[in-house]
């Protein structure tokens, strides 16, 4: 929907959130990148099309990327999948949903 709002994408347990600018640091270029690494093997993957590349920076355990083209985020699983979503051109930060554990009283990453 073209309503001029840059919407974050919540893809399973991963939040892909638009930010103003990339943090300082050396980026690397990829056509595909796992933004949500899953213990159970069904990763969430950022994919470019037609040979285009993302600029990716990983800093303090967080992933930042820039894309100058429409990309997509997909879920590599055979069942119970999260729908593929389009990622508009922009600068983004990817963070992982955390869940509180009432037994141990600590937060841990949510896994699919």
């Amino acid at each position: 929907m073209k309503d001029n709002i840059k919407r974050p994408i919540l893809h399973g347990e991963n939040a892909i959130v638009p930010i103003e600018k990339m943090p300082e640091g050396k980026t690397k270029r990829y056509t595909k990148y796992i933004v949500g690494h899953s213990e159970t093997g069904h990763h969430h993957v950022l994919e470019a099309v037609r040979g285009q590349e993302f600029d990716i920076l990983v800093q303090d355990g967080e992933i930042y990327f820039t894309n100058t083209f429409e990309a997509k985020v997909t879920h590599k699983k055979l069942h119970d999948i999260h729908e593929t979503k389009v990622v508009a051109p922009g600068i983004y930060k990817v963070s992982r949903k955390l869940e509180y554990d009432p037994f141990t009283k600590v937060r841990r990453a949510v896994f699919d």
Partner: protein
Amino acid sequence: MIVTKDKWITDCLTGGDEVNETDARNGIEWMYELADLKKPIVIFVDSPLAVQYAANILYNEGAIKQVHSQVYSQVDSQVHSQVYSQVDSQVYSQVHSQVYSQVDSQVDSQVDSQVRSQVHSQVYSQVYSQVDSQVHSQVHSQVYSQVDSQVDSQVRSQELKVFPVAYNVGGWYSGWGAYLDFYAQIGIAKHKDLKIYLDYLRSGVFYGNFLDNVAIVCRRPSGVRRDVGHNLDSDQLPAIEWRDGYKLWFLHGVSFEEPVWKKIVSQKLTLPELAKMDLGADQRAVAIQMLRADRLLEQMKAKEIATGKKYGKLLEQFGEDQCAEYFPFSLNEPTVLYQVDNFMDTGETEYCMKMEHPSIKGKYYIEWIEPEIGKKKDADLCQAHAFGMSVESYLIAVEA
């Protein structure tokens, strides 16, 4: 690399439980000889538990004099220095010579050596990560070490002696085996006894004790069941079993005694029962995870205290047709926040959210939230907090 990796994983875990006793015996005798030890008697049994039982029988009969002999570590250090480190240096020099020959020899020597060591480490890390570490992780970390720890605790619970396990067995060293095999296939690893060693690792020996004058080894499991993340897991059958009837039950990589496992998978476990059981944190977490959301909430006597407003706001703003097209998740049930008083008889109040999978209607799950957030009775705030976002960002986010 992928073919090598997959073959080693398959052979070690699901390649059947037959043992090539000739290759196994040749390999074990070769390793003892490398360590300058007397040729052992090799005994084949059917399961890791049987290995420990056999060692205890021999010890009680006086055939084995000590529990903690140095044999397994002597063998390991000789195999390591004779095989692994030689192959490792062959790989290094091969990669170095192939790359160096492409590099202009006029390049500054400091840059040159930085490039060489960087390329070596990049090649090594690629092969390691794609072959060795994946095989090691799936075979050793996710299966072998789980089995080892269960065997250990079962033997101790019967007040028997636990004999140290050998490293040079298929279940433990398959990652190294895959690494050596890959380099042998591409012609870099050349060692006169490499075939004996690789044939041994592939012979079907899964677990064993290397002792003075005797080596007791067992065959691979007859059945291994895992989840998509390669963790031992089955809600139908034992996750791993051997032909002598030795079985272990796991759910998502966490072990359970059979009676507890049965109660969990049949949805007959109640929270009061769970609270009374002597279970570890991981076991409790998996047991709760396996309970259906509605049953869990009912058993906890959870009270509904707030409903998320996000979906209602989107429907109000865009209408059902546009939401169906652009925000299909908004047609799902909203997040519901629950309060659980006296959680698991602790006297504490906890909070959890029940939510419907954004892409799969009718699939629900529970996530917990810190009490200091939950007590604010705002379901959207709880979701935003869990995602590390502002509430404003959460309310406009698309979901999948």
